[in-house]
């Protein structure tokens, strides 16, 4: 029998705020342990949480970006459990009245489009971080109380690759919207994976198996690549699967059972009495809506349509937002936006990368840490984006050969001078004066009797030798198209 996988993801994302969810402690990563803590986030008796307005805004903004409905009323609840990283012995979350529900994410998958429905995105708080030692464990509460968004998908995913692409699309949206930096290294995104298998084409769901606390997208893909065939194998061998929680062992590349449903938690949810419900007013919602951004996929499609760019170029500009913005400014009024895109991607980006690599090496030799270094970025360029468009224009109207344009670009990059001025100063304008070219062509033919004879006897490729000679004589400034025409005419005469 053939089986298919049914996968749903719960993605936890730390929100990009200055302060924590319920107190004024800083929301930062990498501080010494237990230095961003206060009586509220340490769960001392008698303290009261007060909701961070920006976290609520980012939650609702996420809902809007994920096409969710924003209910008129949301509230907070306590999820009760005992664990060392939860100081209060409960986590504040949104149980039955979340801030957003019922959306979807569209993304590119295997050459087509895919859609995953979003059940809800609700606001909660992160917990402390456990450090494990040989004989005991130690808890750091710096992370406790950091605003955390849980984005729950419907079980619409059918493969490890699809889950991976969905997570990347989700991350792109969150980074675009300024919701979260989504820095995996800093644990800003974590994932719980629910996966079951069923006979292909079936409608029921198999025993749901949860893989907890994944901290990388590639880990999710590898865990599913292992887990799906494992479940199928159990069923094909006549075994049964029971609802359970498993752990992904990244080093071993396997999942292991942690607990089965018999020991499932009873969280005894109840409304958080210390927090008031949230009912966004029309003005408040309008202010959040004004922060909506173009979604990554829409941006990519717009670049392809408006500027007639190939998918590869549009993808570059989707992934590098400032570069895409630079391109759009440079392409304003350009006759050939595709040519401008080529220059931005192939020349400008490469030149910047080269410069930055050199600057990093220099600063490293001075003993600077990476975080203290400064380097040239798009906003530090000495020439405006319009200058790049002008340069492309000079190539398009045949004033400049493409090799001469490279020289002009280097000069622009170093000095910030306008392309037309550089062409003038250096005498780089392409020679299209027929009289001058005729003389050069005569000289080249005389200097290459062999190739000239070859061409006349039908070996047309021999023309390139003579053409090359003309280009050399003109120091690269001869208009190659014209040279070709003149040579052909002369040799056929």
């Amino acid at each position, binding site marked *: 029998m053939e089986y298919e996988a049914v996968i749903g993801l719960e993605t936890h994302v730390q929100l990009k705020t200055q302060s924590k969810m319920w107190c004024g402690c800083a929301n930062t990563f990498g501080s010494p342990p237990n230095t961003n803590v206060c009586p509220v986030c*340490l769960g001392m008796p008698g303290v009261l949480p*007060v*909701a961070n307005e920006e976290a609520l805004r980012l939650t609702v903004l996420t809902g809007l970006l994920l096409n969710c409905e924003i209910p008129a009323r949301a509230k907070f609840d306590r999820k009760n459990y005992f664990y060392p990283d939860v100081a209060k012995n409960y986590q504040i979350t949104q149980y039955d009245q979340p801030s957003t529900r019922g959306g979807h994410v569209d993304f590119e998958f295997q050459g087509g489009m895919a859609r995953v429905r979003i059940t809800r995105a609700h606001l909660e708080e992160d917990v402390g971080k456990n450090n494990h030692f040989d004989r*005991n464990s*130690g808890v750091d509460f710096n992370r406790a109380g950091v605003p955390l968004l849980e984005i729950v998908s419907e079980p619409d995913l059918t493969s490890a690759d699809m889950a991976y692409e969905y997570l990347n699309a989700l991350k792109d949206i969150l980074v675009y919207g300024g919701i979260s930096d989504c820095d995996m290294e800093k644990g800003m995104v974590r994932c719980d994976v629910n996966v079951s298998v069923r006979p292909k084409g079936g409608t029921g769901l198999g025993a749901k198996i949860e893989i907890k606390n994944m901290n990388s997208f590639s880990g999710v893909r590898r865990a599913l690549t292992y887990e799906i065939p494992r479940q199928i194998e159990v069923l094909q061998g006549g075994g049964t699967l029971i609802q359970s929680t498993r752990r992904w062992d990244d080093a071993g590349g396997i999942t292991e059972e942690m607990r089965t449903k018999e020991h499932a938690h009873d969280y005894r949810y109840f409304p958080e009495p210390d927090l*008031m419900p949230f009912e966004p007013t029309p003005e408040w919602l309008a202010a959040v809506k004004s922060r909506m951004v173009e979604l990554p996929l829409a941006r990519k499609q717009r670049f392809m349509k408006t500027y007639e760019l190939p998918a590869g170029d549009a993808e570059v500009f989707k992934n590098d937002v400032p570069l895409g913005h630079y391109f759009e400014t440079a392409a304003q009024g350009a006759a050939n936006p595709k040519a401008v895109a080529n220059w931005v991607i192939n020349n400008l980006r490469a030149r910047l990368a080269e410069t930055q690599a050199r600057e990093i090496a220099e600063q490293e030799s001075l003993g600077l840490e990476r975080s203290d270094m400064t380097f040239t970025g798009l906003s530090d360029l000495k020439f405006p984006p319009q200058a790049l468009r002008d340069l492309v224009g000079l190539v398009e109207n045949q004033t400049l050969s493409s090799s001469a344009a490279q020289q002009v670009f280097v000069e622009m990059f170093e000095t910030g001078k306008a392309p037309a001025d550089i062409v003038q100063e250096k005498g780089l304008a392409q020679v299209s004066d027929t009289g001058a070219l005729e003389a050069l062509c005569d000289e080249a033919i005389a200097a290459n009797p062999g190739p000239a004879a070859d061409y006349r006897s039908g070996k047309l490729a021999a023309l390139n030798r003579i053409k090359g000679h003309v280009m050399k004589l003109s120091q690269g400034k001869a208009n190659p198209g014209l040279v070709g025409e003149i040579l052909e005419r002369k040799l056929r005469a």
Partner: protein
Amino acid sequence: MAGAHMDVTDVAHLARIRLTPAEEQTLGRQLDQILDYMEQLKGLDVSGVEPTAHPFPLVNVMRPDEARPSLSQDEALRNAPAPANGLFMVPKIVE
């Protein structure tokens, strides 16, 4: 009415409260009485009544997103029975 029943042992475990058998008896009886009251309330028609999460008619209590000074590490760990390396040390956590 059959009378509602709550598993006191289970609830006490979930709340990490240790009860003597006598306490379990007493509390079990009292909790069952409370559940019986709830059963009676279920008989009321509340279809036109909004659920109340809070007795105060107050919504949207929020603070601006501004970071403020936190406690010092020493101060934060003052109640910890076994602090070490800036951490709250606890028995080894096994998942």
